[in-house]
């Protein structure tokens, strides 16, 4: 079929191991998915290989939407730019002071190295008080001197953080104007522009990390942008933010700290959408990779947002982001016996290099994947991902026998099953804790695995936690890339109010809301992407005076606001979170948050649905013995993508497809829904 120009959307998720590409022709609905190896350190190469696989003529592309881990990796590997800090007199150590914490409860051997060295932190004369009053005006000579010293020290990027800048940013603005005239590049990050929110350490850390990432992420994105255009691309280049919304690549280059969870966020966003289309409003997404297991809660069709995260001890990013809890239990996590004689999983991992024992690349300590191979759940003759021809099952057996079976006095099959059981218990525990912390009853949720490994453990999670069911998307391996294509554009604004509700002038609040909405709309229009509608979400962070944890109060009405309306909205939300209101206590508004969301047209998920050209019998590849519950079962093996809509299959069986393997335990059954997703339940 011939294509008219610019009707193709390309979602591209560059992960640690694979780069996934999802291409859709918006007119015909035709879809293609591709997977190439990521090129760590030269991410742009994998990016272009992937895009070229999906679309030969870049001029046909309307938009490329990109989920990236370049920022995350630069943070974890400490490969950001040499960064300086300019701050208020008396506060040179804002970053080093943190919030006076330590990395772990037990053991006092913590260490912390901030991304800005103390030698590159300079104080300037200026002071704003908590109420916004300027106590001391900015001394411009101090700024000039600090800039000169930073430049002399070959600092590439600078962060400006003044105390109480959330309450009055005038000194920071003045500093910005002056520094812009002195600094040789665009790498200047100012706290009140990035996060005009009370709490100096969180604001300083976010600003410093942004400065640290700007040169790295900025250069990466600008390189891609330039090369895309030189190769004929004339569409929109968009980046997924950690909150699952999109921004244009120039905005991302300026605020790279907002892309720290870009790829995973796209996956959760897509899962929420897929699940809701299949009638599941409450799911817990489980992304099992090589080294980690990532969990997110989607309640009432919406992914839970966290207000901040720590990339590592003391590296705090405060910016709305999809809440992802990570534990060290992936396919490559090593199983071992601790000094007490207990079987443990992780946190040490064989990763993807050298990888599990069965990869034959030098690791001889058994992993969760090795246990799945030994049990027959993973097909050692046809591994997923396409990088290896076969897996060394014998070596995996030997490793499990030696490291687990012998010390515990168990035969190799029982030991392999024990490894999987303990891994399941760890994952189940994390899911219970995450859901309880959010006040959810896990029994009302479905597990939704995406990524390569999760679907092997889905039934066990349902069983252990008492989840209602599981939903396995049709293409678990490309969910993040799919998320890129369906995500909405999003601009977030925050303003610290920090006043008792009774003292707040509602008309001032309304004018802030109007101002932010106007700004957001303007930015969306400039992005020239296509929107089906623009939605403005307004919320307030509120609490009872004296409390420190606020609740987020969504305002459904944003004009003709008054104390009663706001108070009612607060009480509704507070009741929901804590179950009871407090009498005779006044409330306060800490922050105003406005999100302007450009809804992008969604494509019809039916294009992913099975073609129903095969019967259930034709989909069956044969049988193989799978060890479960202490004995071997003769499990049917199916080609998952050939399963017709509406068919129901009983466990034990194994469903295989290019990017994942699904293990249906005895006592479970699975039904293929209209979009080709698999709904798994206990019989």
């Amino acid at each position: 079929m011939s294509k008219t120009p610019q009707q193709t959307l390309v979602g591209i998720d560059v992960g640690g191991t694979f780069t996934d590409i999802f291409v859709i022709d918006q007119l015909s609905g035709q879809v293609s998915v591709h997977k190439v190896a990521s090129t760590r350190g030269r991410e742009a190469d994998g990016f272009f290989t992937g895009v070229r696989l999906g679309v030969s003529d870049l001029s046909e592309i309307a938009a490329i939407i990109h989920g990236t881990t370049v920022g995350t990796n630069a943070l974890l590997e400490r490969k950001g730019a040499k960064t300086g800090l300019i701050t208020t007199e008396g506060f040179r150590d804002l970053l080093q002071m943190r919030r006076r914490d330590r990395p772990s409860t037990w053991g006092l051997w913590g260490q912390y190295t901030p991304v800005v060295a103390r030698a590159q932190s300079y104080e300037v004369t200026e002071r704003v008080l908590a109420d916004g009053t300027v106590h001391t005006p900015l001394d411009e000579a101090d700024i000039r001197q600090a800039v000169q010293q930073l430049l002399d020290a070959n600092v590439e990027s600078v962060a400006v953080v003044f105390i109480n800048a959330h309450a009055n940013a005038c000194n920071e603005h003045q500093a910005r104007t002056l520094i812009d005239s002195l600094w040789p590049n665009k790498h200047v990050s100012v706290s009140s522009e990035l996060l005009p929110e009370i709490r100096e350490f969180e604001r300083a850390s976010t600003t410093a990390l942004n400065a640290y990432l700007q040169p790295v992420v900025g250069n990466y994105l600008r390189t891609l942008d330039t090369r895309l255009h030189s190769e004929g691309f004339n569409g929109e280049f968009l980046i997924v933010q950690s909150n699952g919304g999109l921004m244009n690549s120039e905005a991302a280059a300026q605020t790279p700290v907002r892309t720290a969870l870009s790829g995973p966020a796209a996956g959760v966003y897509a899962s929420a959408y897929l699940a809701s289309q299949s009638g599941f409003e409450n799911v817990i997404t489980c992304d099992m990779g090589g080294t980690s297991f990532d969990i997110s809660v989607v309640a009432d069709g919406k992914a839970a947002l966290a207000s901040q995260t720590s990339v590592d001890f003391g590296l705090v990013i405060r910016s709305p982001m999809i809440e992802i809890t990570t534990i060290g239990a992936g396919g490559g996590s090593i199983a071992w016996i601790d000094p007490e004689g207990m079987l443990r999983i992780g946190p040490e991992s064989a990763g993807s290099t050298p990888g599990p024992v069965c990869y034959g690349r030098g690791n001889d300590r058994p992993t969760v994947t090795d246990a799945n191979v030994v049990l027959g759940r993973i097909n050692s003759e046809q591994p997923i991902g396409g990088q290896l021809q076969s897996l060394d099952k014998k070596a995996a057996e030997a490793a499990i026998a030696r490291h687990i079976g012998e010390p515990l006095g168990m035969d190799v099959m029982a030991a392999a099953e024990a490894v999987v059981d303990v891994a399941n218990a760890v994952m189940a525990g994390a899911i219970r804790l995450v859901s309880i912390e959010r006040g959810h009853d896990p029994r009302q949720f479905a597990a939704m695995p995406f990524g390569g490994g999760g679907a092997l453990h889905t039934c066990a999670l349902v069983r252990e936690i008492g989840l209602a069911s599981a939903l396995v998307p049709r293409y678990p391996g490309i969910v993040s890339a799919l998320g890129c294509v369906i995500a909405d554009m999003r601009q977030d604004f925050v303003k610290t109010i920090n006043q008792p509700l009774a003292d707040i002038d509602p008309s001032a609040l309304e004018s802030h809301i109007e101002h932010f909405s106007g700004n957001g709309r303007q930015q969306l229009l400039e992005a020239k992407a296509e929107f089906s509608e623009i939605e403005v979400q307004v919320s307030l962070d509120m609490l009872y005076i004296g409390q420190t944890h606020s609740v987020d109060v969504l305002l459904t009405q944003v004009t003709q606001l008054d104390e009663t309306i706001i108070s009612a909205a607060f009480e509704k939300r507070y009741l929901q979170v804590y179950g009871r209101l407090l009498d005779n206590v006044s409330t306060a508004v800490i922050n105003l948050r406005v999100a302007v969301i450009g809804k992008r047209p969604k494509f019809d998920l039916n294009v992913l649905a099975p073609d129903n050209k095969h019967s259930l019998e034709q989909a069956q590849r044969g049988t193989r013995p799978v060890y479960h519950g202490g004995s071997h079962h003769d499990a049917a093996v199916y080609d998952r993508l050939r399963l017709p809509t509406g068919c129901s299959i009983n466990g034990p069986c194994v469903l295989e497809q290019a990017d994942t393997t699904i293990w249906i335990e005895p006592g479970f059954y699975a039904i293929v829904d209209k979009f080709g997703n698999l709904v798994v339940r206990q019989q």
Partner: protein
Amino acid sequence: MIDPVLLSVLRGRFEQVADEMDATLFNAAFNPIIAEAHDASHGFYDATSGDTLVQGKFGLPVFVGAMAFAVRAVIQYIEDNGAPDDGDIFLFNDPYDGGTHLNDFKLVQPIFNDGQIFCFAASVAHWHDVAGNVPGNYNPAATEIFQEGVLIPPVKVVRKGIIQKDIISILAANTRLPMSMHGDLNGQLAALRLGEERLQALITQYTAATLHEVLTELRQRAKAQMQRHITELPDGQYHATDYLDNDGINPERLTINVSVTVAGSKLTIDFTGTSAACSGPVNISRSTTEASIYVALKHIFCDVAANAGVLDPVDIIIPEHSLMDATSPRPVGGYTETILRVIDVIFVALSKAAPEKLNGCAYGTINALSIAGHHSNGSRWVMFSFFGGGHGGHPEGDGLSHGNAPISMATIPPVEILESRYPIRFTQWALREGSGGPGMHRGGLGGLYEIEVMNDARGFLFGERGEYPPPGVNNGQPGALNRFSFDGPGETATFSQRPPMISKMTGIELQCGQRVRLESPGGGGYGAPFDRPASAVAEDVSNAFISVQQALDDYGVVINADGSADDAATDAHRQRQRA
């Protein structure tokens, strides 16, 4: 033998339930000391001995050991007054029985199975205010517990599932912040409710007998692992002595003396030689002492599971009537200072046995500072906070700067939050240069805090380590002393005044515009300072963690004009000094 897989799975499930109880209280609590600073803890305890079976990961470390005593107090109550009913919950804050101080309210619930007590679930949390002379109850001038707050012995706050409103009324009448009290109590009850529900589900799934077997086995294994750790230490007797500046009432120093004996797989920790109980509030009860020993050992051997097995191979000798064996009505409000010192002497004594396993001491004082006054509208304000300091250098590297106390995981509120709530302004919020104890691995830096009051106010300070600095280990040197100073009458930013009791003072009068300054201790160093590479010392100089003079005096490193180390001159100087 019990199935090893079941053991691993159930260990995780138990810890998880305790973690969920922690999470429930943190979310529900009204009071920032619980909600933000996590000054609370949850766990399960043996039905007959009260020993710790399982403990949550997120609670306050010092409670982990103290809770067992709280449960024992309830077991004693049951012996004296008869068996409880299903649905009964005990409440009390008696620090002599249950450990720590009056703010820590313990809720203990027997969990029944087949009409028998299967185990106890317990929740402890720091309530904001429990009456007494000083809001928040840190009264450095208390000489009797009655001046510190209200003392409640074990009573049934819930009988057969029915909350006893008369007891709630007594509690509400004995706090300056009844709202906070209601919120915290409800949070603790919610945590217990969840704990019981989860535990009953486990019993249904696995049977009580299996759970018993698993819990016994877990303790056995913790004990065995602890014994292996002890066996690795060379046999011998190891001493350490440290001091408290004073008790806040009398100026004399107080001695904490420990001798640790390693004999095979057995450890004896003997505090003979420790000062007698004192007039001021730095006494601790026997249960608090045992809890501190538990914390010290868990920091050293952090891979051992958090249950009573940790102390099974340990004999503890606490001299009667010493300040570590306080009985009513000795004041105990400043218990934190004493337990930090107990932890320090154990670190130092064991460092003599196994330097490769120990770290330098942390800053060793919580520096409870409160500044209070009245707003222009006449309403009262009280800023109350604990301050941080340096952690000790350790075998893997330099100590953490500005960390929290080893007994707690609490964070400090942001400056901007404090400034927005109270008429104060921080003029310094910084690392205290030069405060880290010299060592091959340097101690972390303490904090330098300067606060200006923006209307007239009055200050209170409860601190320590003003005369005896945090020791280093393995030839590491001590960190800097705690130092508090403030403006005298009519002065501004001179900091000419010091407290008569070193780091403790009530009634510091401050006029609008006057300031106080707190310089907290750094951590002790690890290893000999002359073994620190000259380049690392030069980097410390470039970051102004130490001065050029300190580089020379403490580390024997000669710094060039361009900031680099002069290696030849350094070698020569170090050689001369060593000779």
